């Protein structure tokens, strides 16, 4: 049975190593609500929540961790050059207009539109799964991570709409 994200997280004390390992999986990992809870628990076991004078670096790491896993899952099945475009777009949303122009030098607008529709569907499915998580801090971190993805998705929609239509 493939290793779960929670298992990978628990065996990698350096978070950058976790990101490298997950990136290599190309989205081929399980991320249902149970997996989300297990990953969230592994994160909170390492970085326990505080309610006053919270450690914002640890909180932000939580959002980044969840966002990274959600995005990699959402990109599952897309061609590698398309994945790379979206990874860059989600990492640097302020560069989206330039990234789109670069992408369209070697690809058709239709490919961008089709891949964006697939991405939107995948993100909506993940949002529904996050919605199934019980109330609490694990859900809060996933919602935080998901929020950024939806924000940037909205931004992509604006710029793809301007260029493609």
């Amino acid at each position, binding site marked *: 049975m493939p290793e779960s994200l929670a298992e990978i997280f628990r065996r990698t004390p350096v978070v950058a190593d976790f990101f490298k390992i997950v990136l290599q999986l190309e989205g081929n990992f399980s991320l249902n609500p149970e997996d989300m809870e297990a990953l969230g628990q592994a994160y909170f076991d390492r970085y326990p929540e505080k309610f006053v004078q919270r450690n*914002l670096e640890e909180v932000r790491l939580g959002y980044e961790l969840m966002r990274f896993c959600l995005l990699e899952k959402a990109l599952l099945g897309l061609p590698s050059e398309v994945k790379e475009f979206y990874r860059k777009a989600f990492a640097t949303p302020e560069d989206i207009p330039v990234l789109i122009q670069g992408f369209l030098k070697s690809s058709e607008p239709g490919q961008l539109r089709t891949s964006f529709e697939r991405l939107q569907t995948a993100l909506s499915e993940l949002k529904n799964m996050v919605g199934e998580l019980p109330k609490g801090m694990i859900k809060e971190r996933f919602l935080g991570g998901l929020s950024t993805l939806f*924000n940037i998705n909205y931004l992509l929609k604006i710029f793809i709409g301007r260029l493609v239509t």
Partner: protein
Amino acid sequence: MSEKTRILVIDDDPAICVSVKAILEASGYETYTALSGKEGLELFRQVKPDLVLCDMMMEDIDAGAKVAKVIKEERPELPVFLLSTIGEATARTIGLDELGFNGVFQKPVNFDLLLSVLEKHRKKS
């Protein structure tokens, strides 16, 4: 040409700040961001925004409510909206107006709705 409407976004997640700023600027708003309640209040006094979007849980679990309280004391007319993951049912029961908020946008934010609300506060040319 008129001055742009100024929006202050306060959220402890830099990725949220960057992405919200990009959307608001693409929609014609002048946007400022702060990564904590403390930094948000400093920027609020400095840039004199026309509207504030503020997260709840930042350096403290209720940092957003503390920020809204101070803003309403200094500028009671200023619209302050909560950006939060608290859920719609909870939002209905916690008394947002008593905390100093004019309303709440649940994360992930519906930007069609948010931009339509912001449009009502846009400075007229």
